[in-house]
């Protein structure tokens, strides 16, 4: 159970990104964060693993206050939370294998990891690459890959963490719509088969309906909707996306 309580984030330039956001995520859920660009989705996800420091509020995960953790404790929490980025955030000049292995940095001996990873971790990396279907790309450099392949590397890297919670920030927004499903299906699989809680921000309502078990709608940093995907009526949709919004269908 992840509890977000009265979360507020004000950036240094005065921008109010999150305004008193509260919700709960039971274990095993596929929660979708819905909202326009700039609604605070990325800030919210990054506050959960403290890539961004919240200004106010608490985030409690299975009884542990993430917002109060620091140093070693914070790193121990982070290593159980996978994060998938819109722009993949791979180290472009490193190999796919190295990128995937870097997901294990929170577990291995820091000094050893600087020299080389243990053989068992390499095997684990290959298993995770197999899981996303790109074993043969292991020796390639990340910048030789296509967008879809890169996001799979991103997923394999997150899997190295053996996460219990997976955060995904617009994981398919930089990809062709046809690739969106293939990536989201992996997340769905992780959610259903491995029981990993997924919190994923998305743009398209059709994808939300297809994959989400619950939805939090954000607008200007505030929660404007909370419920099941099928409860998003056209009226609700306009509340999240503004009055001029039209629905677009993605196949």
């Amino acid at each position, binding site marked *: 159970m992840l509890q977000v309580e009265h979360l507020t984030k004000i950036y240094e330039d005065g921008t109010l990104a999150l305004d008193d956001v509260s919700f709960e995520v039971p274990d095993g859920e596929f929660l979708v964060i819905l909202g326009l660009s700039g609604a605070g989705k990325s800030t919210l996800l990054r506050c959960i693993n403290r890539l961004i420091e919240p200004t106010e509020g608490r985030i409690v995960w299975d009884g542990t206050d993430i917002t109060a953790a620091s140093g070693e404790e914070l790193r*121990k929490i*982070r290593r159980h939370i*996978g*994060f998938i980025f819109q722009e993949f*955030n*791979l180290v472009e000049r490193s190999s796919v294998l190295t990128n995937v292995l870097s997901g294990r*940095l929170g577990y291995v001996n820091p000094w050893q990891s600087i020299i080389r990873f243990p053989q068992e971790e390499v095997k684990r990396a290959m298993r995770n690459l197999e899981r996303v279907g790109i074993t043969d790309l292991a020796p390639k450099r990340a910048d030789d890959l296509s967008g879809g392949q890169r996001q799979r590397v991103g997923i394999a890297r997150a899997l190295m963490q053996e996460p219990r919670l997976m955060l995904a920030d617009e994981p398919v927004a930089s990809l062709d719509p046809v690739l969106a499903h293939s990536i989201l299906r992996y997340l769905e699989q992780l959610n259903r088969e491995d029981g990993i809680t997924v919190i994923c921000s998305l743009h398209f309502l059709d994808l939300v309906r297809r994959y989400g078990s619950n939805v939090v709608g954000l607008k200007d940093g505030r929660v404007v909707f909370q419920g099941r995907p099928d409860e998003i009526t056209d009226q609700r949709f306009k509340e999240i996306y503004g009055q001029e919004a039209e629905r677009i269908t993605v196949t």
Partner: protein
Amino acid sequence: MEGKKSPLLSAFLSLIPGLGQIYAGAPLQGAALLLAIVVTALLIQWQGSTFLYVGIILAWLWGVGDAYSLAQGRQISLVPPFLIIGVIVYIIGWQVTDIKLMRLITDVADIKPLVSNLLQPAVLERDIETQKAEVIFESPCSDSPPEKGTPLEDEPYLIILDKTCGEVGETFTIEGGNFWPSSRGQIWWLNMAGEMKRRIRQEGEYLTFQTDEKGRIPPLTIVAPEAFGEARGKGPQRSRVQALLKREVGTIHPSHTFFLVAEKMMETIFLALMATTVAIVFAIPVSFLAARNLMGGTPITMGFYYLTRTILNILRSIEPLIMAIVFVVWVGLGPFAGVLALAVHSVAALGKLYSEAVESIDPGPIEAITATGANRLQTIVYAVIPQIVPPYVAFTVYRWDINVRMSTIIGFVGGGGIGYLLQQWIRLLMYREAGAAVWAIAIVVWALDYASAIVREKIV
């Protein structure tokens, strides 16, 4: 443009250039015209070509007319006066830099020997064998003049036929034998100790001779030259007259110059290597201090950022040549001064390039690695270093390449390396030797340029 302004007043104001335009609503153009005319007038005054004031007057008159029509609401048109001013500036520039294009054609003969020497660098040579013989001449005469010399059986000899002493300017005749047949030779004039010598000239030309088929030097008339330096005018002085033949023998082999150039070239390359290495050691920490994205946190770190940047900019603006002069005075002539000069300049140059590489790293991977629970060291090793190593290596190789080129120049002011040899040879008019150095520099610079291009291509 509003037509409420008075055209006449505008034109009147333009008697001071640009003021009309400022009044009629084009302050920027007006100010620019005023500044341009004043500066150009000062330039003409300084340079002294007063006829150019015609152009200033034309530009000024156009300005008056333009101010009038501008106030009437028409479009501003200051292109012609600025064009005139541009022409004036280039005319002054032509005269100041003393451009004489005809010289390139009329004096082309002067460059020919130089170019032909440079094209025949002294890299290969054969051993030189010499034959020589001497007699003694005295000037002016003492009570016991030297002997005329005797013809020898087997060895080369030189004798004086008529008189072995005389005043400066008097002539005497020599003859010799047993030299190599049918060879050209030279006549030298030495003091008795042999440490001072010069070739004898006759009517401006070096005196030479040709041996006959039996190796005899036919009778040769010589005008007695002045004694050397201090001995001049101090009573009778004896001097040695020497006939000298040279010929090349044996196989062609690399010359002494070749080995000297090779040795100094290695010194140059190492000089650049040491300077670059020292620069790397200092530039890496400096580059982090000079990277805005790393130092942007607090006002204190921003202060360090600006301080570092300022120091780098100042250091970079000092030419390495000037630094070399400073270090030559400080640590003495030689390659160490060159290393220091290039190192200081390279720290500034590399520090800036490195810091720009740091500034351009993608924050995404850092975020991603942090999110895995990695600590700070792991984040740097896995997210920052892979991003900055390739540009660092590329910039460093490029810098080494630049330093090799610069160290040849550094040598001109005594900073060691091949430049030191080159400037000596140029001053001594030894252009064939200088040519060898120039070729060596060209080859090494080309090779390094090529290598660094490949390295940069592979890495970036």
